[in-house]
């Protein structure tokens, strides 16, 4: 998958690139409006990450230009502004998703994958992890062809794991992915364990291997040796 990251902050850019490169993505970047404009006009990308505040112009303007030449490109706006106006404007201009700083890299990754899936639409709505198949269109999960009955949260969880294979995901990260900011109001995160236990049980019952590995004191890892 080919990505363009439009971000003027070097450190943040490095973070995103380091994380995404491990996934085998081709990551290009642009640090200001001119560079972003040139790249968007000259090449095609699967997903473009756009920071709104960039030197020389607005990320929203880049988004506008991009949509006019390549409307099928997936776009995610990265913004420090939690301002509703930006969000609405961005989404109205055709951005596929919106993520607010500070975000978590696994979360960003999961969203890139989701946006990409939505935009490709060439049968890729099925994510395969060996014997597990996740249909992102119908939101069904099967193991060797047999359906597994999952709750919406469990479905979110398996999708999140599948999007961040072989990464350590902390309880906090998982909780925030599933419940967003509401997590702030929970004093203990034991319920994450509950959900993972249930998911593990259901998958194993359907005949899948145990991919969810506990990392003591840290969190969990979805360990898959051969990448699917």
């Amino acid at each position: 998958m080919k990505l363009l990251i439009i971000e003027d902050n070097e450190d943040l850019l490095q973070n995103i690139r380091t994380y995404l490169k491990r996934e085998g993505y081709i990551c290009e970047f642009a640090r200001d409006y001119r560079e972003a404009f040139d790249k968007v006009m000259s090449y095609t990308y699967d997903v473009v990450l756009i920071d709104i505040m960039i030197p020389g112009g607005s990320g929203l303007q880049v988004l506008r230009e991009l949509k006019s030449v390549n409307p099928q490109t997936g776009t995610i706006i990265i913004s420090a502004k939690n301002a509703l106006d930006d969000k609405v404007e961005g989404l109205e201009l055709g951005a596929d998703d919106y993520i607010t700083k500070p975000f978590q890299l696994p979360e960003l990754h999961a969203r890139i994958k989701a946006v990409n899936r939505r935009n490709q639409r060439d049968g890729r709505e099925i994510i395969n992890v060996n014997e597990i198949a996740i249909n992102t269109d119908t939101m069904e999960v099967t193991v060797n062809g047999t359906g597994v009955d999952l709750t919406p949260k469990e479905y979110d969880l398996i999708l999140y794991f599948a999007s961040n294979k072989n990464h350590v995901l902390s309880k906090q990260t998982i909780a925030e992915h599933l419940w967003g900011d509401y997590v702030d109001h929970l004093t203990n995160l034991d319920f994450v364990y509950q959900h993972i236990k249930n998911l593990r049980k259901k998958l194993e019952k359907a005949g899948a291997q145990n991919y969810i590995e506990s990392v003591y004191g840290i969190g969990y890892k979805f360990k898959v040796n051969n990448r699917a």
Partner: protein
Amino acid sequence: MKLINKFILIYLVVTVIVLGIAGYISFFVIKGELDNELKWRFMDRIDRVTYLLDEGKNFKSKKLKGSGDRNLIIQQLPQKVAPETVIKDTMVWHDRLQQMEPNLKVSAYRTVEDTSYFISTYGALVETDDITEAVVQILLWILGLQVIGAIGVGFIVSGRLFKPFRETLARIKRFNIQDKEPILARETNVEEFNDLNRFVEEMTRKAVKDYKNLKEFAENASHELQTPLSITKGKLELLTETDLTPEQYQYVEASQRSIKKLSRLSESLALLTKIENHEFTNKDEVNVTNLIRESTQAFEEFIKLNGLQVETDLEEDVFLQIHPVLADIMWTNLFQNAIKHNIEDGRIRIRLTKDSLEISNTGKPLDMDTDLLFKRFKKADHGVDSIGLGLSIIEQIVDQNNYAISYDYEDGWHTINVKFHPESV
């Protein structure tokens, strides 16, 4: 009291005092003049009698009485006496009035052709009561005219003269800092008003400028903080990908939590500033019943996870005129508060009517002054990982929409009540 009324009142009080003093003086001046006049008249009479005696006229008391001049006494003296004049006040019995009346008596010794005479005459003085009455009557007339004049002038002054002042006042009242338009001074022909207008213009210009700066700061501060926080967060995430011992990992987790808190803090402060800057003034019809119903559903899992029970008593279709974002923030903050500061197996009660929203939750009593509850960073529950801005945000929203908020603790229940129409209750 209007300035002009006050002015008239002061003017009238001064007038009354001045008239009082003037009356007092007038009384003595008039009395003095009248007395002098009487004295001169008597003196003239004595001179005339002396002249007539000199001419050889013979005054007999009988003849005198016949002439009707009862108050004239002429006596021939046996020996010669040096000429002398005595003037004195005396009381004389008045037959008709049956009382003593103040009289002026002038007595003189005169010598005509070697014969000395005693000539005396007296007559009633003008009574002080009469003078007082006349003076008071005159003064009352003057006062009456003054009152009419003062009120008349007052109307003209307040109508014409104060017109520029009232215009400026009206413009200050209409001034809204969000319009970012200073009040421009208008020329008038009164120096004080010009000063005032120029001052108002200068002041509003400064206020508008400061407001713009503050607004920009609030926006920038949020943005500028979020980027470095994002970087740190990302670096820590990348760090967790390396081989860390559980101990090292716990340090990373703790840092992550702090970053999260910092980020929320700056977001909340920016939000608070935005509300204070009146950035959310566009009001819309918001169905609070639906808002509460939807959000309690969204929170359902949390409520269960926290082992809480929620009872709702919602009146159908309660509409409020409020910015939708503010309505959402207010409710979410109230509800989250109730979840956060609850106890194990606790309960939450929500009651919504057309006039008020009441949310109660079980919890430990507060160990702080309830007046401080809505102040920034005042946290009653130190054990909880909260940033202490929630209630301040709620209070700001309540203030801006002219609602009233109150807090109460009774029998293990914390109750926050928001009245939507406090003036009519």
